């Protein structure tokens, strides 16, 4: 009967037949068999009816095809795609159904993936916006940062070129279309009663043309404006001026001079750093230029079609002509001979170390995602094993390998996409946390939000994870071992154990790499915390304010004002000591200049490069800066010019090598007066705890000469146990002496210290969290795999125990199996970490990238966690009841 039907079915076109033929035969045969119950005649009638129907349908099908199959269709691409989409849809629906039926499994898989994808999505969002997004200027790839180096000269490492370089480049370079000098500094801005120290830029007018930046309002400075004008940022315009367009043409005091606002820049113009509120004009003229004043920042725009090497070669050649054109000392000429221009992408320069931190974080998040994928892949593998019989049956009755693969992949993809959707929500939640923890100096961080690119990235990450997770299982599931159907599908094959063990070992290795990275950062953090910066940051409060009074006109009058205010502060309850410094460490930088002793010759190259600032009151005692020799300043030093200075240990060593510095005299370059050293104090680290100690000269408040300098806005430091709470009382005192002056830059020194380490602590914190996640997922993976192994080997364990193995022996056996895998993973992880931790070396402090103790500690931690993860299933195994396990078969 079936043979007859099969012959008849051949009347159908091949594509239809191949798809429905077997079903039609089966269907008709069943009809026939059913009717057989009512007798032979009805059965025969049924068979004939079916046969007739088949013949008729086959004819219709050949005349008007209702079915189009993929391989046989040539022109029907639209139909083909609708067909595959629909059957793909069926796969997806089936996947959803299967996932719904096992909520525990699904929750684990989706949750794991969501956590990992969410982590990488939020890191990607930051990375994309901060590092990957181009600078907001036209053709940003042509913008370069120009520095200099002169190996073998007294200038070590890379340094900023001098002004004459800029002039030479601007006039003579063909490969640079334009070039500009810029500098960033803090100075006071006065608008009505409001005076604050804000971040400003001092830039040549060519900066705007170099970058291609335009104002949103007003115009840009031109040469005729000289330095009497300024352009302001969008932020300053909105916050200080209420976005009032009439601000153009008004003049305010900026950086010590009255300047007219002529333009408002667009919001995206944040140069050179975020938070720069206004830009004043830096003028560079060839007339009267003094050569060899290095340290400027240069930005250039390369001409189209040239590259950085060519630019560097051209600029190096151009610089050779500098001594001929501008003169300068023999030392300068020698330096120029060794000079080489350094040309780097501007974006690299602006991002600095932030880029590396973020890439490291991204790599760590990618590792966690890999670990999560391995876990989920393992879960799917286990499930495929469980469904092995079902798959073998499907294969036996004709399901194609591709169909089985598709089925598995659909499930993994659906799970991953669900995870991805959840991950977007997770990223939305975690991003603000990440941003709040991020260091203040990271550029462009304020612009970071979840974007379309984040969604796209998350989708890709989810799809990739789905492929990774489903791939292994699909591969296993696609070729079910038909022979095992006969055995009843028992027993574990070596190949699949090898696969799972390999995955766990890989997972362990990856988690260990992250752990070691986090460990190294932790050690650096601790080392930095124990650095002695030359001062004590505990219980110190610092603030600034800018009094504005008619009587304050020269050094001594400012000194009297500040000394009087110091006395008022000292009278506050709980205050141990108070002091003044012009540039408080960790907050502001000191100024550089050359100083010489009386033995050193005069001239442009004379003396030593030192830094200088002002100090008064009990500054050294308040900051616990040791006085090594002589005495600190006395009140008399500030009120009139006695020409006394205090210098730091390194300054003394540089100026007076091998001699006692107290009582000797020094001179700042470009000044006539000589100053007598009255005391030597310990060096301080001005910029952070990685800094080299500064060779520093402290002037008294009176200044080098009575009129040359007035310390308008020094930083006050107050030593008090109430450092956290004293601000309101200080504000009250300020209101009494200078009602118009607000208090600003108010911090505890401890907060400044924390801020200075925030780049490290941010990476440490995030890498710590990420590696904890990796450790957890890794342990989970090991636990899961051993649990399955124990479940599979229940019978074997039962036999062993029936034969006399003790519970302890069984536990040992299972733990040993886990330990072997973990040990392999640890070995691989150690080797990988040895290479990978080099990426961290820029961030490490006081610890080598290959740090034995850290490696050993983290490897032990991994082994212990691995042992614990193995122990739980081992205990379960040792509780196997031999009778039960044997009976269950």
């Amino acid at each position, binding site marked *: 009967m079936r043979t007859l039907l099969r012959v008849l079915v051949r009347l*159908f076109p091949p594509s*239809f037949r191949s*798809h*429905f033929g077997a*079903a*039609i*035969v*089966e*269907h*008709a045969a*069943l*009809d026939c068999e059913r009717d057989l119950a009512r007798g032979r005649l009805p059965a025969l009638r049924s068979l004939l*009816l*079916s046969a*007739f*129907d*088949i*013949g*008729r*349908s*086959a004819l*219709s*099908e050949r005349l008007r095809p*209702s*079915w*189009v199959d993929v391989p046989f269709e040539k022109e029907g691409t639209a*139909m083909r795609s*609708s*067909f595959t989409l*629909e*059957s793909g*849809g*069926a*796969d997806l*629906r*089936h996947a959803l*159904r299967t996932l719904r039926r096992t909520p525990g499994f699904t929750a684990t898989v989706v949750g794991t993936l969501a956590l990992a994808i969410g982590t990488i999505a939020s890191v990607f969002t930051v990375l994309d916006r901060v590092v990957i997004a181009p600078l907001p200027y036209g053709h940003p790839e042509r913008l370069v940062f120009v520095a200099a180096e002169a190996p073998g000269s007294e200038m070590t490492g890379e340094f900023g070129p001098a002004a004459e370089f800029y002039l030479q480049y601007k006039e003579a370079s063909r490969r640079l279309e334009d070039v500009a000098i810029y500098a960033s500094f803090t100075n006071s801005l006065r608008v009505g009663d409001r005076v604050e120290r804000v971040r400003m830029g001092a830039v040549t007018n060519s900066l705007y043309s170099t970058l291609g930046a335009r104002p949103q309002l007003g115009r840009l400075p031109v040469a005729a404006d000289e330095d009497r004008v300024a352009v302001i940022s969008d932020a300053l315009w909105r916050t200080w001026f209420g976005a009032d367009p009439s601000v153009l043409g008004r003049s305010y005091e900026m950086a010590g001079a009255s300047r007219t606002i002529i333009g408002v820049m667009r919001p995206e113009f944040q140069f050179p750093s975020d938070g720069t509120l206004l830009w004043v004009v830096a003028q560079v003229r060839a007339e009267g230029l003094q050569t060899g004043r290095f340290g400027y920042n240069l930005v250039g725009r390369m001409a189209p079609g040239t590259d950085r090497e060519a630019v560097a070669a051209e600029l190096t050649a151009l610089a050779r002509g500098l001594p001929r054109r501008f003169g300068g000392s023999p030392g300068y000429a020698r330096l120029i001979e060794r000079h080489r221009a350094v040309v780097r992408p501007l974006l690299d320069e602006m991002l600095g170390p932030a880029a590396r931190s973020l890439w490291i974080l991204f790599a760590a998040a990618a590792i966690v995602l890999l670990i999560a994928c391995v876990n989920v892949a393992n879960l799917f593998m286990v499930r495929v094993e469980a469904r092995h019989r*079902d798959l073998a049956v*499907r294969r036996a*009755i*004709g*399901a194609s390998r591709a*169909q089985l693969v598709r*089925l598995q992949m659909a499930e993994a993809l659906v799970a991953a996409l669900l995870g991805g959707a959840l991950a977007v929500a997770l990223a939305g939640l975690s991003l603000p946390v990440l941003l709040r923890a991020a260091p203040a100096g990271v550029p462009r961080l304020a612009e970071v939000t979840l974007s379309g690119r984040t969604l796209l990235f998350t989708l890709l990450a989810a799809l990739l994870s789905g492929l990774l997770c489903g791939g292994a299982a699909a591969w296993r599931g696609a070729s079910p071992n038909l022979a095992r159907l006969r055995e009843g599908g028992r027993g574990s094959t070596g190949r699949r154990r090898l696969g799972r063990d390999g995955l766990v070992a890989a997972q362990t290795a990856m988690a260990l790499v992250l752990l070691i990275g986090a460990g190294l950062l932790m050690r650096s953090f601790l080392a930095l915390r124990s650095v002695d910066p030359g001062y004590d940051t505990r219980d110190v409060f610092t603030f600034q304010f800018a009094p504005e009074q008619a009587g304050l006109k020269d050094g001594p009058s400012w000194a009297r004002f500040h000394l009087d205010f110091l006395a008022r502060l000292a009278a506050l309850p709980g205050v141990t000591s108070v002091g003044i410094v012009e540039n408080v460490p960790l907050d502001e930088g000191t100024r550089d200049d050359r100083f010489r002793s009386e033995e050193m010759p005069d001239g442009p190259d004379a003396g030593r490069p030192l830094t200088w600032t002002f100090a008064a009151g009990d500054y050294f005692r308040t900051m616990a800066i040791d006085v090594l020799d002589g005495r600190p300043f006395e009140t008399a030093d500030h009120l009139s010019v006695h020409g006394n200075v205090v210098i730091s240990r390194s300054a003394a060593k540089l100026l007076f090598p091998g001699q006692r510095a107290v009582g000797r005299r020094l001179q700042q370059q470009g000044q006539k007066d000589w100053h007598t050293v009255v005391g030597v104090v310990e060096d301080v680290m001005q910029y952070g705890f990685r800094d080299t100690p500064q060779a520093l000269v402290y002037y008294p408040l009176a200044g080098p000469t009575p009129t040359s300098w007035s310390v308008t806005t020094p930083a006050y430091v107050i030593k008090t146990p109430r450092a956290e709470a004293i601000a309101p009382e200080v504000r009250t005192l300020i209101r009494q002496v200078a009602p118009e002056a607000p208090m600003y830059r108010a911090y505890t020194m401890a907060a400044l210290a924390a801020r200075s380490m925030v780049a490290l602590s941010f990476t440490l914190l995030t890498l710590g969290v990420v590696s904890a996640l990796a450790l957890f997922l890794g342990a989970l993976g090991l636990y899961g795999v051993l649990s399955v192994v124990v479940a599979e080997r229940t019978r074997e364990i039962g036999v062993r125990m029936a034969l006399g193995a003790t519970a302890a022996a069984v536990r040992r056996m299972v733990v040993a199996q886990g330990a072997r895998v973990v040990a392999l993973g640890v070995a691989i992880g150690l080797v990988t970490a040895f290479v990978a931790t080099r990426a961290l070396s820029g961030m490490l402090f006081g610890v080598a990238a290959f740090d034995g103790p850290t490696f050993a500690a983290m490897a032990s931690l991994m082994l212990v966690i691995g042992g614990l993860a193995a122990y739980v299933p081992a205990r379960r195994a040792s509780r196997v009841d031999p009778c039960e396990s044997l009976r269950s078969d």
Partner: protein
Amino acid sequence: MGTSLLEFHVLLALAGGALHGYAIAERVAAESGGTLAPRAGSLYRVIARLIREGLVAESEGEAEAEIPHPGLARRYYALTAAGRRTLGEEARRLKQAAAAAEKRLGLARGRS
């Protein structure tokens, strides 16, 4: 898109969940009061057409709750979203037609 009566009944049969071919035939026969008893060849042509039109999709699934037929357990058919929509539209159209018929027949009775 209009559907034939058999197509409508196949869609109707699948509205309750995925079925294999034989179960579709049984259900169609039951739900059409025995007026439709498609034979294998016709039935699968209809199914093929519905699949091509995107109203029905194949799924390689375990049956939802149906008694499995040995030997036919390998291919199930389920309504797609479009199929569900079409079924609803067709049902509405039939209801309107039925209401119109009843109204007209009722009027005819009233006149006589």
